[in-house]
């Protein structure tokens, strides 16, 4: 146990402590001699900086939209895969595929092969509807990022919700049918309450990762146009590696960690409550 503990401590806690330490200094790599204690200056700047406000808003918007849509789609796909359809195994494997593609490669394929206004597949398919030559990435940047992230996260939601659906006792559904419940009533009254904890778990775990979305934004929009798709992680990258303001970037990092920790705590609680429900049965 001890070696494992030391290893985990070294690789996770020391960088974090250093980040907190740096966040109190006005350190810019390009300014020799700028390594000076600055009290809470970096944190105060977070409150007044408009870019931060935009980034927080974009992060919330992106996370809520991606999680919301992918939960709905994931639930739908999970319902299909849970029923007796032909080629279920193959379908499930295909459905997981987007999640297995590297985010960077996936985003590149979207940007260049699917959405490119000159030779992309989507503009070509949409030409009969008068939507050819639409520059999706630049004209609808947030929609594009959300679409790509939904494509990526729907399989994750599907897997977790499918797990919940498969734990459903078919006898209960059959009893409901005998009692005269129609398909919608069965779904709303019986299935949905059963998979609700699984949806919550999926949404919270997903939020943890979607809050950190960086690769697809870097590849698709580079945070633009303007600051339309700059979320907190991407802003952190810009501040650290375009502005070389290590102190400022560390402060953003610390605040981002606090936010994700809150979400993570909620996620873990939900996870435990599922296991408690299971144990009680």
């Amino acid at each position, binding site marked *: 146990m001890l070696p494992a503990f030391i290893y985990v401590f070294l690789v996770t806690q020391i960088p974090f402590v250093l980040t907190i330490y740096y966040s109190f200094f006005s350190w*810019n*790599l*390009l*300014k*020799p001699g700028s390594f000076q204690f600055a009290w809470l200056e970096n944190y105060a700047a977070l409150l007044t900086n408009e870019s931060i406000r935009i980034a927080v808003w974009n992060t919330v918007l992106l996370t809520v939209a991606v999680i919301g849509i992918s939960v709905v789609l994931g639930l739908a796909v999970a319902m299909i895969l849970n029923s007796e359809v032909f080629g279920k195994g193959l379908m499930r494997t295909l459905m*997981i595929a987007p*999640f*297995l593609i*590297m*985010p960077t490669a996936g985003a590149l394929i979207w*940007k260049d092969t699917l959405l*490119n*206004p*000159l030779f992309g597949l989507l503009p070509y398919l949409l030409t009969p509807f008068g939507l050819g*030559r639409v*520059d999706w*990435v*630049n*004209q609808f*940047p947030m929609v594009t990022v959300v679409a790509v992230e939904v494509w990526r996260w729907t399989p*994750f939601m599907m*897997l*977790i919700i*499918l*797990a*919940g659906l*498969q*734990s459903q006792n078919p006898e209960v559904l059959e009893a409901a049918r005998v009692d005269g419940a129609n398909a919608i009533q069965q779904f709303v009254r019986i299935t949905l309450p059963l998979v609700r904890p699984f949806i919550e*778990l*999926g949404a919270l*775990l997903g939020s943890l*990762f979607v809050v*950190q979305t960086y*690769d697809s934004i870097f590849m698709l929009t*580079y*945070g*633009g*146009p*303007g*600051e*339309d798709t700059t979320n907190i992680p991407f802003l952190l990258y*810009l501040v650290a*590696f*375009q*502005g*070389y303001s290590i102190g400022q970037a560390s402060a953003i990092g610390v605040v981002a960690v606090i936010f994700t920790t809150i979400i993570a705590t909620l996620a873990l609680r939900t996870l435990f409550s599922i296991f408690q429900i*299971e144990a009680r*049965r």
Partner: protein
Amino acid sequence: MTDRKLGSFGPLIAIAVVLALVSTACSGAGGGGGGSAKTITLAAVDNPQMADLKKLVSDFKSAHSDIDVKIVTLPEDQLRQQVTQDVAANSGRYDLFTIGTYEVPLWAKKGWIENLSPYIAKDSSYAVDDLIPGIRTALSYNSNLYAVPFYGESSMLMYRKDMLAAKGITMPDHPTWDQVAAAARAVNTSSVSGICLRGLPGWGEQLAPLDTVVNTYGGRWFDEKWNAQLTTAPWRSAVSFYVNLLKTAGEPGAGNAGFTECLNAYNNGKVAMWYDATVGASNFTGDAAKNSGYAFAPHVVKDWSGWLWAWSLGMPASSKKKDAAWTFANWATSKDYIKLVGNKLGWAHVPPGTRTSTYDLPEYKTAAGGFATVTLESIAHADVTHATVDPVPYVGIQYVDIDEFQQLGDQVSQEFAKVIAGGQTVDQALTKAQALAAAVGKKYQT
């Protein structure tokens, strides 16, 4: 019952969670250094000229058996990050790196890079007077040379003579932007765009050509007292002109078009004109190579509005093998290297824009055809110290030579990209850009 249920969904959740963890665990390992005392490490930008250098390193080694050269090539943005971190942290990972005219004066001032003038003085055969004067100025700090040029460029207008002739247009050698815009609109069709201009955000991408337009319209980033000037009339006219030209006769998807995208469009006959780096012409193929004409950077108020850039070899002050590093830098930027490239790889491969003598070589004149003169004269007339109509407190043509410009330029170009995409007006973008620039200018007002 309970066991069966747990057994069925447990693995699925486990798979999902593990997948999520694995997919976010990115690899970010960097290359290691080390080696014997004779090994020097060069961090080089990933471009065709550097690829040629890599091929010819064996020639260097056969003449200098005691020095081993390791070349690390990186894309421009990553190179900049790696090298900046390296010199700022004084880590001595590299003995040489390729840096541009933007970095050299800034880093020389901070003492991050070595003064190369003493090394040059020791070697009379280096012919420092042969270096093109404008490039020398741009790579100097306090009259000392802090980097040696490997490749230099300005900007020019490249156009398809056949496409323009079909509409009865002849392009003058020194066109005005209005003439260029009129020609672009005349030849613009649904399948062939009039002109390709960079729209891709980034201070080194979209902002490079746009800054030259601003300069020739009479605009400047800061006045002599470091007051930001982005809401002035010249900026408004220049940015409106650029965006309107892109919208009426520019390439589709302009917001994603950088140097590479425009080069592809021009080579494939998708655009009739292209205003960009002089090196673009070295990469033409097919019809583009046969039927292209070249004109100097278009102007409005200020003549000679072409930009100036040189990828150069600089030596970090932290290098522990400075003599060996200089031996290599000397070889790679010498007259002999240019001839070596010409003889071994072909004269079209010669790194242009560094030495006046290159343009006297008959073989190069033949290979570089129409654009050799335009390139040389554009570079000769590009002056980083007098790029604007009104006086400015900074140097630089297509950039402002201050530390903050990388971030400022990126942010401002993002605002213009939003204008190109139709997300806001020119005035809205300039107001935001003005606020960003004013914040930077404040740091220089004392």
